C-alpha cells in the first residue's frame, strides 16, 4: 500500500507491504525490513536490523502525532488519488497569530509602510502581539478596528507589495 505523509509542508512517499512476519517499508528508494509489535494501543516496538525503534502514535482530528526519540512530529496523511490542492499562502495576508483583542491599529488604508513597521497590536492572555509589515508596500485593507475580537488565523491587514 502507498501512503503519503505531509509534515511541515513536505510530502513523504512511503510504500508498505506485509509479508510473513515482516513489514517491508520503502522510502526514498530504500527498503527497510522490520519486525513490529504493538505493545499497547498506539505503542510500538519495531526491530530494524540491529536496533529497536520505540514509538507512540495517536490520532488527532486531522493529523497523527508520532513520539519517537523524545521528539513529537505532527503528520497529516494525504490522499494519494486526486491532486492535492497546493495551498499557497497569499502574500501580504497577515493572519493573526492568536485569538485576542485589537488594542490599536497603527495605519490606515492607502498608507505606505516600511518592512517591519507595526501595523496592528493584538492583545491576548495579557500579552501584546505586533503585526508587522512583511515588506515595503501599501495598506490595501484593514480588516479590524480597535477593540475588535480577532480569532487565530484570521487575516488582519492586507498589504500590497511595493513593486
Amino acid at each position: 500500500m502507498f501512503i503519503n505523509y505531509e509534515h511541515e509542508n513536505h510530502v513523504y512517499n512511503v510504500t508498505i507491504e506485509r509479508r510473513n512476519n515482516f513489514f517491508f517499508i520503502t522510502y526514498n528508494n530504500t527498503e527497510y525490513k522490520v519486525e513490529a509489535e504493538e505493545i499497547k494501543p498506539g505503542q510500538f516496538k519495531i526491530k530494524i536490523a540491529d536496533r529497536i525503534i520505540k514509538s507512540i502514535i495517536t490520532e488527532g482530528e486531522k493529523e497523527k502525532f508520532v513520539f519517537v526519540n523524545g521528539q513529537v512530529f505532527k503528520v497529516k496523511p494525504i490522499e494519494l488519488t486526486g491532486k492535492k490542492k497546493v495551498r499557497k499562502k497569499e502574500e501580504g495576508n497577515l493572519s493573526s497569530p492568536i485569538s485576542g483583542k485589537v488594542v490599536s491599529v497603527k495605519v490606515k488604508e492607502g498608507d505606505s509602510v516600511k518592512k517591519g513597521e507595526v501595523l496592528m497590536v493584538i492583545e491576548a492572555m495579557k500579552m501584546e502581539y505586533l503585526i508587522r509589515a512583511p515588506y515595503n508596500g501599501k495598506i490595501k485593507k484593514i480588516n479590524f478596528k480597535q477593540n475588535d475580537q480577532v480569532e487565530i488565523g484570521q487575516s488582519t491587514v492586507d498589504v500590497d507589495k511595493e513593486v
Partner: protein
Amino acid sequence: MFKKVLIANRGEIAVRIIKACQEMGIKTVAIYSDVDKNAIHVQLADESINLGDPTPSESYLNIQKIIKIAKDTGSEAIHPGYGFLAENPDFAQSCKDVGIKFIGPSSKVISLMGDKIAAKTTMEKAGVPVIPGYHGLKQDDETLIKEGKKIGFPLLVKATAGGGGKGMRIVHSENLLEQSIESAKRESKSAFGDDSVFLEKYLDKPRHIEFQILADEHGNVIHLFERECSVQRRHQKIIEETPSPVMTPELRDKMGKAAVAAAEAVGYTNAGTVEFMIDEKLNFYFMEMNTRLQVEHPITEATTGIDLAKWQLRIASNEKLTLKQKDITQRGHAIECRIYAEDPSNGFLPSTGTLSKVEPPKGPNIRDDTGIYSGMKITPYYDPLLSKLVVYAENRNECLNKMIWAISRYVVLGVTTNITFLNEVLKHKEFKKGNISTHFIDEHFKDWTVTKDGLPIDAIISLAVYDSLHTKREEITRYKEADPHSPWKHVGRWRVGGRGI
C-alpha cells in the same frame, strides 16, 4: 489546624495543594469553571463546586463567587495558589472581612509589594540594595523621558503593577523611549487597570536569582536558600535550578540575610520569595517580592526536604515556625522544567487542542506536578502551563543527565508543547557550563525551529507500521487502485508548492 480549606485555583497547583491538605487530614474544596469539570483537582478534592462561565473574571478571578462558596461549604481558609487571586490585596481583605483565613501574607503587605515603587523605596530604607531608577509619582511623558535620559541606556520601562513580563519594555536608545513608554502603559492599563510605570537601569546579562523565605505570625523569619531562574522566555521562567551555579557560601549568606531583612521590613508572613538581579560581578539588587507560593517551589523542597505548601498551612493556622535557620541545609541539586502548551518555533505562542496522550516519565527522584490527562482539552482561557517536571540528584551534572533522561520520555501528544525545546536547552553547552543569564534564550535560540531535519526515518517507519496495522480493508483497496506507476511514489521527500529542499 484547619478542618477544611478551599483551593481557589486550578491545574497543577490546585492538585499540589489538595494533596498537601489531604496528607495533613484537612478536607478540601475545589472550585472549577465549566471547561474544567473533569480536571484532576476536581476529581481529587473532597468537594468540588462549579463556577460556571470559564472566563477568568467570571470564574477563578471572581472574588464574590469564591467567598460565597467558601462560606457555603464551611471552609475556614482559602489557599490561592499562584496567579489568579494569589496577589490580589482585595481578595485577601475580603477573606478577612468574612472571617476566612487567607493563606498568605496580609492584604496590606500584598498591596505594598504589589506596588513596585513603594516596594523598592521600602527596601532601600531597610538597607537592601536596589537598582538605580526613577520610581516617582509624576507620570507625564516629559518627566519620564527626562528621567530616562538621566538613567541612561539601555533602560527598562516597567509597569508599576506588573508581573510576569507584562507591561515591560527594554529601551536601547533615546529615540525609542517615548513609544516604549506609551506601549508599556497601554499594556499595563489593560492587564492591571493601572498605567503607571517606572524606569530603571538595565543590567547587561543579569541573572535572576531568588530566595525562598518562610515567616510565621510570631516574628520568626528564615530563608531556604536560592533558586536560579535565569532561563526565561518572554520574561517568564522556563527552567529553574538550585543551587545556582554561581553561588558561593559568602554570597548566599549575604543574599539570604538581605532576603530575611526584606521580609522583616514589611512584617511579612507565610511563604514568599525575594527576587534579585545579579550582575556579572555578582552585585545583587532587590527586584521584587512575590507574596505567594512560587511555581518553582518544588526544587527548594527537593534540596531542603521541607514541604512549603504544608508550612503555608501551618503558618496560616498560627503555628510557630519550628525550623531554625542554622538547621536548614541544602543537599544535592534540583532542576525544574516547565512544560507549556506553546510553540517555541512560533514566538512561544500558546497552543490549544485536545491532548491525545499524556504519559509522564517515572523514576527515582523524578517529580511531576501535573494537572493534565489524556483526553483533556487545552483551552485559551488560562495560563498554558501543563505540568512541572522536577528532578533531584547528587550534583548538577547528574541532575542535568537525569532531567534530559526524564524529559526525553515525557509523552504529550495532541497539542504542541515546549518539551523538545527544553530538551535542547538542557543539552546546550553553555547551559551545561552554567553560563546563563536572562538573555540565554534570545542569545542561543533566537530562530529555533523543531524540524530542521524534517521527519526522521524512525518516525516514517513507525507511521507506516501503524497505518499498515490500522488501515481498514476497504481503504487498502482504495490505496491499491492508485496508479502504481505514479512518479510521486519514487521521488522521496518533496515540498508542497515551494522551493527545492
